[in-house]
């Protein structure tokens, strides 16, 4: 579904992405793992077209995304730090997105809006929101239009345990519907029950892209966090 071929991106002297090639298919739930500054968010942003890569290309459903924009209708994106127009209220943001992105015969998925009880906060302005509530708005927006692909950048960071659990449940439901889900997180334990594949990045380079079953078999570890730790150890040796 999404194929990135030899994607490179440089910010000044820093190589954010170095010849990264990945293939993501429908029905997969892929964890993007790597240390801080390893290029995870940059990779996500190049897929979304928010960052234009220097070399290589990305295709979405066999179409190059470079001059395309309609493909983003199939993507729900939850940014790591949701930045919203400060003097708009939650209700206005939701309405605006529905107005801009939705069409009449689209079924909106308002599960998260309801479960996060955002309906009670509709009049609140974005600048008054706490980090967690912002995350809830981001999550609700990402799932709102029933996209085929969900890209979640640190989805549970800043959420309270109850909300994090709601979001995880939601991700699992969407996964069973056969959607492609790309998720980054530093809390590996919460990825255990979600992911089917692991992409490990370091210094802008793709280290490996493996099925989780293979990874478990190779390392002999059941837990993802331990499996990754043993791989990292092996690599540094």
């Amino acid at each position, binding site marked *: 579904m999404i194929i990135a071929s030899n994607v490179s991106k440089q910010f000044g002297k820093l190589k954010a992405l170095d010849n990264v090639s990945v293939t993501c298919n429908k029905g997969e739930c892929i964890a993007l793992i790597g240390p801080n500054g390893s290029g995870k968010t940059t990779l996500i942003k190049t897929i*979304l*077209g928010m960052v*234009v890569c220097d070399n290589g290309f990305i295709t979405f459903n066999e179409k190059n995304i470079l001059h395309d*924009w309609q493909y983003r209708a199939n993507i729900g994106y939850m*940014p790591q730090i949701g*930045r919203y*127009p400060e*003097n708009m209220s939650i209700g206005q943001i939701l309405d605006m*997105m529905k107005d*801009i992105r939705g069409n009449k015969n689209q079924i909106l998925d308002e599960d998260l809006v309801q479960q996060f009880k955002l309906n009670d906060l509709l009049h609140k302005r974005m600048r008054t929101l706490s980090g967690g509530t912002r995350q809830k708005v981001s999550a609700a927006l990402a799932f709102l239009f029933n996209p085929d692909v969900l890209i979640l950048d640190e989805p549970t960071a800043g959420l309270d345990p109850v909300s994090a659990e709601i979001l995880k449940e939601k991700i699992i439901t969407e996964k069973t519907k056969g959607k492609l889900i790309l998720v980054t997180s530093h809390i590996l334990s919460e990825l255990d029950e979600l992911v089917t594949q692991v992409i490990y990045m370091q210094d802008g380079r793709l280290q490996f892209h493996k099925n989780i079953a293979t990874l478990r078999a190779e390392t002999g570890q059941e837990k993802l966090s331990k499996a990754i730790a043993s791989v990292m150890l092996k690599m540094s040796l």
Partner: protein
Amino acid sequence: MKKIIKYVMIDILRNKIMLAYTVFLLLISLSIFNLEDNSAKGLLSLLNIILIVVPLVSILFSAIYVYNSAEFLELLASQPLKRRTLWLSIFSGVAGSLALAFFVGAGIPILLYEATPTGFIMLGCGILLSVIFVSVAMLATVKIRDKAKGIGVAILLWLYFSLLFDGLVMFLLFQFADYPLDKAMVGVSLLNPIDLSRILILLKMDISAMMGYTGAIFKNYFGTSSGLLLSGMVLLLWIVMPLWLSVRKFNRKDL
């Protein structure tokens, strides 16, 4: 595109600065027209204020607005929208509201007190200048990432167009006083939209006789209807060129 323009316009029209700008223009123009017994003279006084204030407010307001809507741009860039649509919508929203503010603040008094061809040209020039400086500000903001630096550059650009450019032209004129520069001056004046508007309006006011021989040359070029058409085209070019460059840059910008 219409939907985004709608949201930008709503956001700007709620802004108190925009209201203050409109009221300020309204007060200035009404008081000038009421102070002068001859409304043509009032128009001349108004001209000088408009040529200073309109570009300054346009360029500063739009630069600050674009920087402040970085979040808005980022949010919408991840949605199924063309980058170009996004950028042009912001431009249309800002330019539309500034032009509207000028029309309400200065245009209506002009139409009330001095609905002559001169008045119409002044109205047209004011609206074009508003839009031109939005376009210039868009180019400056897309090139410069840092907000403080970008707003500084916007102020410098305004300073250049309203003061430094004239100083430079004067300097050149005095340095090359021995050469016939009258025709070259026509070309040079096309390089600055503020000067071009000033010349256009002054010529319509029939005080070009006060500008000496160069004034006569200007009258020959700009006073005719083809000259008017040409300068109108040049003013439009001043909108289109910076905007086109900024769209090109924004299409490849990392958000």
